[in-house]
């Protein structure tokens, strides 16, 4: 069979043509952008400027050239970091953006910028490196619980991104004067004023690359999974070293130019497309691809800017381009048989009296409502129990918002149970399906099409956006109803795309986009009796309807095959569950904004309380969701008194660490 073996032999000439094409494209974009100026100024401008009053020459040498170098360098570093992560985690979806390094670095930098500015003067790099590594560890801990599958790592990573941006938003609201800078920087701008950042970044990136190359052989061995240990490899140490290098490379880039989303994902994917087979070639070609990809994007954006005057931060644009890529990559993952994750294997002890447990939780909710209404802060900031005769005046200020928050929490808790059971994935949540991002996008569109419109128009826009995303999801689901996971994939990618789009618009500094921020943070301070009654009614209806799904959800969690053989019409059942969950999510999002982890956390809390079967879990998750949101709303009201912090963002702020703590506690107990 000489022909057969020739076909499957290693391709001697890999798809290198793609790389050449990309290089030519990058060159063309660069020549188009910089060529005319260079022709005017003469070649000597590359090496220096004699006449400092010659403004175009100064601009060329001290801004446009270093920007080109910066794009090349940052792209290359991110490409190498992405390839490293993918080899170590054995996961084609890993990248600095999807394992949380970038998000952590961003958050760390923002926090130090506001609270410990002196640290930045000392070492910006260490701040980003520390933040990035911490976030990555958190992501791994969470993903570990979900079996460390490629998808669970990505979900946890994107959640870390959400968390970081929620915290940054909170900071921005508390310290307004930093607001603009934080957002532009968060969007990843490559604009340069001199050569210093490039010159300081260069040796760092080079050092990281050399270290990565020294690790090549052990890294190759990681391809053997378990077998690598049998060859005498200290797997844990090698992994730690590789991850540290990846985190460092990313941290350096983030500290120099901010977040350049998804280049670290796109570059290794491109390298594989060009036929890079071995880890060595993947590492190098990813670096080159990353450099070329970012350079091309950045040069094209400059051409766009000079032509139309539209300024877009490069990082936000790469994130926008990267999200669809994520969708493609995710769909190429080999379909895996349903496997119980380690979280499910070590199930918490089942509660012996679920009814009492749920009743207790419901009681706690009522108690929380009472406390939120009765306890406030006085003029001097001290906590005081409001006397009953003042209640008539206070009630309209305190009760509606508490009701809105609580109802939204109930809805999200329910939706979370539905989605986690539907996808049999403990890392899934309503936020992940992209429906909340759809709502944000709808509001954004309204702001631009009908600026200055009222609250109702905004609500309509948000609903339309949520429904549009939902429709797209359904259309995809109709076409390929192979597995529940495909739904999750599409949702994640869509959500990432819309989020990137929104942050690009916000980073552009448009005042209309700034209005959006207020709603995105999930403020309940504008709630009145009407909205409270409406939401409470919807929550009650949802609570009554949810038990109807209980049996279907129990079976769906056993996996598609089992559910089908039990006689469930898969397609119809999934559609129904999805519609229900999406409606709940959309309503809750309108009330408390898109950024909350309640839908992810509440089902987990219910499980931890021993409510394992679907009906008790629903009830428990609803109660926990309500409780969390009431608490978040109350804290938002009193914590930064006399100012108010939005409930949605507060929920995220409290919820993120709580989630990680939950995971850690379980680890400690089973270890």
């Amino acid at each position, binding site marked *: 069979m000489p022909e057969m*073996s020739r076909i*499957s*032999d*290693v391709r001697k000439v890999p798809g290198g043509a793609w790389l050449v094409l990309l290089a030519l494209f990058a060159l063309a974009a660069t020549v188009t952008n910089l060529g005319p100026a260079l022709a005017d100024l003469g070649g000597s401008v590359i090496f220096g400027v004699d006449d400092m009053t010659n403004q175009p020459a100064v601009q060329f040498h001290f801004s446009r050239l270093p920007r080109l170098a910066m794009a090349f360098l940052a792209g290359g570093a991110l490409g190498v970091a992405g390839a490293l992560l993918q080899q170590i985690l*054995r996961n084609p979806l890993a990248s600095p953006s999807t394992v949380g390094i970038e998000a952590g670095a961003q958050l760390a930098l923002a926090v130090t910028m506001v609270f410990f500015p002196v640290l930045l003067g000392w070492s910006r790099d260490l701040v980003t490196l520390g933040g990035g590594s911490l976030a990555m560890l958190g992501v791994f801990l969470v993903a570990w619980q979900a079996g460390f599958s490629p998808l669970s790592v990505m979900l946890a990573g994107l959640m870390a991104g959400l968390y970081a941006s929620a915290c940054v938003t909170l900071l921005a609201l508390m310290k307004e004067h930093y607001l603009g800078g934080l957002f532009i920087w968060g969007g990843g701008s490559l604009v340069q004023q001199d050569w210093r950042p490039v010159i300081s970044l260069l040796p760092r990136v080079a050092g990281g690359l050399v270290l990565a190359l*020294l*690790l090549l*052989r*052990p890294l*190759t*061995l990681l*391809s*053997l*999974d*378990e*077998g690598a*240990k*049998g*060859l*005498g*490899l*200290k797997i844990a140490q090698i992994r730690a070293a590789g991850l540290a290098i990846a985190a460092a490379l990313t941290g350096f880039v983030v500290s120099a130019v901010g977040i350049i989303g998804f280049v670290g994902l796109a570059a290794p994917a491109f390298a594989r497309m060009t036929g890079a*087979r*071995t*880890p060595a070639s993947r590492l190098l070609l990813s670096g080159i691809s990353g450099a070329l990809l970012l350079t091309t994007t950045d040069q094209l954006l400059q051409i766009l800017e000079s032509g139309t005057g539209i300024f877009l931060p490069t990082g936000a644009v790469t994130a926008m381009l990267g999200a669809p890529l994520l969708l493609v990559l995710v769909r190429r993952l080999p379909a895996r048989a349903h496997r119980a994750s380690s979280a499910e294997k070590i199930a918490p002890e089942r509660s012996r009296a679920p009814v009492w447990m749920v009743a207790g939780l419901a009681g706690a909710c009522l108690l929380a409502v009472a406390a939120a209404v009765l306890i406030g802060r006085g003029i001097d900031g001290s906590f005081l129990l409001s006397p009953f005769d003042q209640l008539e005046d206070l009630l309209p200020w305190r009760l509606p918002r508490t009701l809105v928050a609580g109802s939204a929490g109930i809805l999200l808790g329910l939706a979370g149970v539905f989605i986690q059971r539907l996808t049999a994935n403990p890392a899934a949540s309503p936020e992940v399906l992209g429906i909340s991002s759809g709502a944000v996008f709808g509001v954004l569109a309204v702001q631009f099409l009908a600026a200055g419109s009222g609250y109702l128009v905004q609500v309509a826009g948000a609903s339309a956006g949520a429904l549009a995303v939902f429709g797209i999801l359904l259309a995809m689901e109709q076409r390929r109803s192979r597995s529940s996971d495909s739904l999750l994939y599409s949702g994640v990618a869509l959500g990432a795309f819309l989020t990137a789009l929104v942050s690009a618009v916000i980073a552009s500094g448009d005042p209309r986009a700034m209005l959006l921020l207020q709603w995105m943070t999930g403020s309940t301070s504008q709630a009145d009796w009407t909205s409270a009654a409406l939401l409470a009614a919807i929550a009650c209806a949802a609570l009554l309807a949810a038990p109807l799904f209980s049996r279907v959800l129990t079976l769906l969690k056993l996996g598609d095959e089992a559910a089908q053989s039990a006689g469930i019409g898969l397609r119809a059942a999934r559609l129904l569950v999805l519609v229900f969950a999406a409606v709940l999510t959309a309503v809750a999002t309108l009330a408390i904004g898109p950024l909350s982890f309640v839908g992810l956390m509440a089902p987990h809390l219910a499980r931890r309380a021993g409510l394992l079967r679907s009906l008790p879990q629903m009830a428990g998750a609803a109660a926990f969701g309500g409780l969390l949101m009431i608490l978040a709303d109350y804290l938002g009201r009193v914590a930064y008194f006399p100012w108010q912090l939005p409930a949605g963002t507060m929920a995220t702020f409290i919820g993120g660490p709580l989630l990680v703590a939950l995971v850690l506690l379980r680890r400690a107990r*089973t270890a």
Partner: protein
Amino acid sequence: MFKINSVSFAIGDKTLLQPLDLTIASGRVTGLLGHNGSGKSTLLKLLARQIAPSSGEILLDGVPSNKLSARDFARKVAYLPQQSPDTDELTVRELVSLGRYPWHGALGRFTDKDRAHVDRALKRTELERFENRIVTTLSGGERQRAMIAMLVAQDSGCLLLDEPISALDISNQIEVMELVRDCAVEHGMTVVVVLHDVNVAARYCDDIVALSGGRLIAQETAQSLMTESRLEAIYGVPMGVLAHPKTGAPISYVA
């Protein structure tokens, strides 16, 4: 080769392997038998140092095996996990070359000696004509042979194989087991192999170690094991033994 002194293994309060004393002889093929969950894979992983015993110690050629450095241990013992790795797009030769890692390390030069070992491993596993094929494009039997070739290139005196043939059809099973047998008989290696099929074990192994519920229930030569009473003790179902019509070797069946 291995001397196991009252070794046990437990996760939390769940004991997977009761305290166990066992000696595994050099230059012989030892089969580990037992039903699912009997602890045979656990025992193999303990030997391979993939996991550490909860109590007791394992001597490798008289030295406590946990005293050896990772690389020294890998020069003496090679391990094939039950789960075949996803080798990405490595070629057969590249995969087999990875077996030389314990000798050249992370930064050492890949010498002619390393190359010679790889060539020899490819030859002995009859994979020479596949050396430039991508591993994932090979058939199941060829892929398993490539994995074993990597272990051969590792040039250790001992092979630990965890169910190397459970996913293969009969002709591939024979092919792989012949290769394993050959390693011991022709090249003096010690082989410990986890098997499911008692007939395969009887045919290719010198010694059998049988486990049940984490306890050692038999250690003897393959021939003496092939009796109805011994087999019933291992598998818990009535078993019969008859003679192979051509060779006369004992064959077991479920009575």
